[in-house]
């Protein structure tokens, strides 16, 4: 068991939590239709930080309405449901308006996946430069570590700064410092480490 960084990917070997199993099931669904990247809290947990999260944030590549309708119906078939009161049509409209839709296992609220289309440069960048993480033998894509550090510093709460520092300490040997500086500059934050 452990965590390693090599050849542009992170490899983690460990027992799966219920949250990991939920995430892997969501990925299996989404991957059939579009690209995705996981951002924020779950990434921290995946990489070993001890904290909870109730929702997992997915940015997905833009889908046509037809493709989304297929994905939505497949989600319902696979035992998921949406927490929003809208039907598939309405959910697609929400995505188009850059709002998040929430999907959970039927009958449950937590954990849930908050799914969005990219709404700004940073979302698009996270998707474009997504980083593979091999969890046991399953592949997941997460936002690049450099972007996460800069973005957490931009958010600026105590918890966010702790998350940024955790990522920095864990990956400082393999970080692309130029990219980290570039993101920090774009977000107008100073790097304290």
């Amino acid at each position: 068991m452990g965590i390693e960084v090599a050849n542009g990917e992170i490899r983690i070997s460990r027992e799966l939590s219920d949250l990991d199993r939920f995430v892997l099931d969501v990925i299996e669904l989404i991957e059939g239709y579009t690209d995705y990247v996981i951002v924020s809290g779950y990434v921290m947990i995946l990489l070993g930080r001890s904290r909870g999260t109730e929702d997992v944030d997915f940015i997905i590549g833009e889908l046509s309405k037809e493709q989304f309708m297929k994905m939505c119906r497949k989600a319902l078939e696979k035992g998921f449901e949406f927490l929003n009161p809208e039907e598939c049509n309405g959910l697609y409209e929400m995505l188009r308006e850059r709002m998040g839709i929430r999907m959970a296992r039927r009958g449950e609220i937590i954990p849930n996946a908050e799914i969005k289309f990219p709404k700004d440069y940073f979302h698009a960048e996270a998707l474009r430069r997504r980083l593979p993480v091999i969890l046991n033998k399953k592949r997941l894509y997460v936002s690049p570590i450099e972007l996460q550090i800069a973005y957490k510093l931009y958010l600026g709460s105590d918890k966010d700064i702790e998350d940024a520092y955790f990522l920095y300490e864990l990956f400082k040997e393999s970080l692309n410092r130029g990219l980290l500086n570039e993101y920090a500059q774009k977000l107008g934050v100073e790097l304290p480490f």
Partner: protein
Amino acid sequence: MAERLAFIRLYVKRLKENPDAVFKQQVKLVNSFLKSARDFPLTKEEYLRLKGELEKN
């Protein structure tokens, strides 16, 4: 904050040196967090309202 960052430094050191023990504890924590969330059931509407998302839908 300096103390909390020092704790994170120690935690990462431990994670790098002894990942099995750290991950094992972490999985236990995540599972118990989810269990306690399930023991405190909310309706979809209540949850979305708590997140401030019901009005805008």
